[in-house]
């Protein structure tokens, strides 16, 4: 909580951050507390009020798009021909394949995932450098699902005031019925969330049918159960506690940010001193300075994490912008300019106080650097993906014996080669060996063609292991180790893959 303390330094003490309010209100005031101070705090219930406005609309749109993608993507079909699944996005664990539309990833290509994770981290950093916690406020699954659960809660139990009043009264059967319905709806969403999760790991339509008829594998039910529990508890019960206490990103974010990054900011230069409309008129009549903030607390009431944004930058603030909508609505009603709370910087507030022009500096060392690295890593990934081979060869030389002397004195080495065919069709390959003056290669168990060459047929999207023995008939004995080149050639397309190995002799 150190960051919170330092970031609040600029602020008057009256704007105590929300987290500090978790301590008993009575303690605030300067007097040493009686007896022991609490080391554990009970959770404060948060009843976010519904709000309308630009950022709310953006959040609804993001929610619809992201959840729409999550729930429906497994059902999108992508025809790959008869030898591969026709699901657009599929993590096929039994066959060790990952399918994403036209891309197919083999286990040994897991570095694409590493690249993706690097990109994800850098995009997160870039978002943070441009406009703070965009991820937290709009895109994080915790935010999106919690938002959905809030919507359900308000639908069943009513908006903030109604909900709070009913909770405070003696609970009637109606109260219990509403709570029951809410939890039932939450569980349904959570269950469907778990259900969608498992669809990414198996053919979705088949699995839905199997799940409905009880034919699905046990592990599918287990995972649906796990995801149901996590979604229900995290989005329904834990909510802002996840952001406040469980997520590492707010801590990292606080360390990564700088003074130029846009953040949801209360413009205290314009807002303070805050006072009610009526009192403001009196003060104004007396020629006293009056701020635009009328202390209506709308910004606090709509906040999903219970933060008072007027306290300044705060770890609890996920920067969803709902307080901007709430404040703008009030300001519009009062006929005052909107934007008392807005995406802005503390720097600009000071600029305005000093009578200078506020500015936003998008191109900075860090934004340029993040964007540059994203471009480089992304470029490398696209390049390697676009130019990767659809065939490959790997070789293991026999460990024992390293070489074999034949009855006529010739030397022979044994190899196990594995040929990779990433195309979704059968392919015929030949393998040649360069580097020895007089060789004979024999692929154990493969019948030769008419021209004497042995064809290696590899099935669609498969690998094939073949034992190869290479015999050297040269008159002079070869050195202890000769570098040789195995060349794999697709006889139809002419595509090749190469791999170096060694031919050993007694020397």
């Amino acid at each position, binding site marked *: *909580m150190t960051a*919170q*303390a330092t970031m*609040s*330094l600029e602020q008057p*003490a009256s704007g*105590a*951050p929300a*987290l*500090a309010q*978790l*301590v008993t209100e009575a*303690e*605030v*005031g*300067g*007097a*040493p*507390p009686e007896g022991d*101070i*609490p*080391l*554990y*705090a*009970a*959770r404060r219930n948060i009843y976010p009020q519904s709000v309308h406005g630009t950022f709310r609309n953006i959040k609804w749109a993001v929610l619809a798009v992201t959840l729409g993608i999550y729930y429906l993507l497994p059902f999108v079909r992508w025809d790959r021909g008869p030898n591969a699944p026709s699901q657009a996005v599929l993590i096929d664990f039994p066959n060790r394949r990952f399918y994403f539309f036209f891309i197919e990833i083999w286990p040994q290509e897991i570095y694409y995932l590493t690249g993706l994770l690097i990109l994800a981290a850098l995009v997160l950093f870039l978002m943070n450098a441009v406009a703070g916690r965009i991820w937290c406020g709009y895109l994080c699954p915790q935010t999106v699902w919690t938002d959905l659960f809030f919507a359900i809660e308000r639908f069943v139990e009513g908006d903030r005031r109604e909900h709070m009043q009913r909770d405070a009264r003696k609970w009637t059967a109606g109260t219990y019925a509403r709570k029951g319905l809410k939890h039932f709806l939450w569980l349904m969403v959570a269950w469907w969330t778990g259900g969608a999760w498992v669809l990414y790991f198996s053919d979705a339509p088949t699995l839905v049918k199997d799940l409905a008829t009880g034919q699905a594998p046990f592990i599918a039910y287990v995972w649906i159960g796990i995801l149901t529990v996590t979604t229900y508890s995290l989005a329904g019960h834990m909510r802002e*506690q996840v952001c*406040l*206490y469980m997520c590492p990103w707010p801590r990292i974010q606080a360390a990564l940010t700088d003074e130029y990054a846009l953040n949801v900011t209360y413009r205290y230069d314009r807002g303070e001193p805050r006072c009610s409309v009526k009192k403001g008129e009196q003060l104004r009549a007396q020629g006293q300075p009056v701020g635009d903030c009328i202390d209506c607390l709308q910004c606090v009431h709509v906040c999903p994490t219970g933060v008072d944004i007027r306290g300044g930058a705060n770890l609890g603030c996920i920067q969803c912008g709902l307080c901007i909508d709430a404040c703008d609505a009030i300001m519009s009603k009062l006929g005052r300019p909107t934007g008392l709370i807005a995406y802005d910087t503390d720097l600009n507030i000071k600029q305005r106080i000093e009578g200078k022009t506020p500015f936003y500096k998008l191109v900075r060392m860090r934004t340029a650097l993040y964007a540059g690295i994203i471009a480089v890593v992304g470029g490398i990934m696209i390049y390697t993906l676009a130019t990767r081979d659809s065939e490959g060869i790997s070789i293991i030389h*026999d*460990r*024992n*014996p390293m070489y*074999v*002397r*034949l*009855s*006529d*004195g010739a030397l*022979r080495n*044994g190899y196990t080669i594995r040929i990779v065919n990433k195309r979704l069709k059968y392919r015929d390959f030949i393998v040649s060996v360069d580097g020895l003056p007089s060789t004979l290669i*024999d692929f*154990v*168990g*493969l019948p030769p063609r008419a021209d004497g060459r042995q064809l290696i047929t590899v099935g669609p999207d498969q690998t094939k*292991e073949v*034992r190869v*023995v290479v015999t050297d008939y040269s008159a002079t004995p070869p050195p202890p180790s000769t570098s040789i080149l195995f060349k794999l050639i697709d006889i139809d397309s002419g595509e090749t893959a190469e791999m170096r190995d060694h031919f050993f002799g007694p020397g």
Partner: protein
Amino acid sequence: MAEDRKEIDALTGTATTGHEWDGLRELNTPLPRWWLWLFYITIVWSVGYWIVYPAWPLLTNSTQGVFGYHTRTALLEDLDALKQQRGPMMDKLAGASLAEIASDPQLLDFARAQGRVAFADNCAPCHGAGGGGAKGYPNLNDDEWLWGGKLSDIEQTIRFGARAGDSKGRAGAMPAFGRDNLLKPNEISAVADFVRSLSGLATEPGANLTLGKKVYADNCAVCHGPDGKGNREMGSPNLTDKIWMYGSDKLTIVQGIENGRGAVMPNWGGRLSEPTIKALTVYVHTLGGGEK
């Protein structure tokens, strides 16, 4: 640490813990209570482990746990599952002839994989991990076979062994010409030189190759053949090629003639399952030297 003075920090409005280090005070931000409850739940959860899994050591044993879990039985279950998984291919292997296995790529791959494991378990101690052989133990990768290199020959050698007391096994041994006073030392020396000359190896200066040739014709040719090409019926090696199981130096050859040779290959029939013997046969055949 100075005297505990819990007070309210003026700047943040947060209570301090009262701890002070050189004038620095720590704000008290209370941990949420559900965190504490989670901690208690993990303690309760750990008790569940004691009940479910083997946990507490007793004098001669330990508590067994209500799930009856044991790493040993878990392993056996895994092995059973593997056996189930391999079942259809194993049945196919058991039912197929050696020729059928060799001509079916899928079955050949399976047999080689099975054979590789069985070879490591049973054959590698003598023949080496990759069948490379050792002194006195033939290299199975090369193209010389004492008892024949066809699939059927290899299978017979594995099943009945050599000189292992099996009536169907490979029999025939190199007599101890010196120890049994069948040959005199000078005759042994001469024939050893002659044998080396058969495969083009250098002979000692002054070697009596004429005597050697006569001794060979009288004593050795009956098994090793008049031209020294050997006889697979008796397991007598070809003396004209570059492969020497015991070594090609004169001393080693003299030792062989003096004391005889008779390496034993165990008979694996009855010790290994039928599909395993087939798999081993195919595996050895495909090491590189298999004959049609």
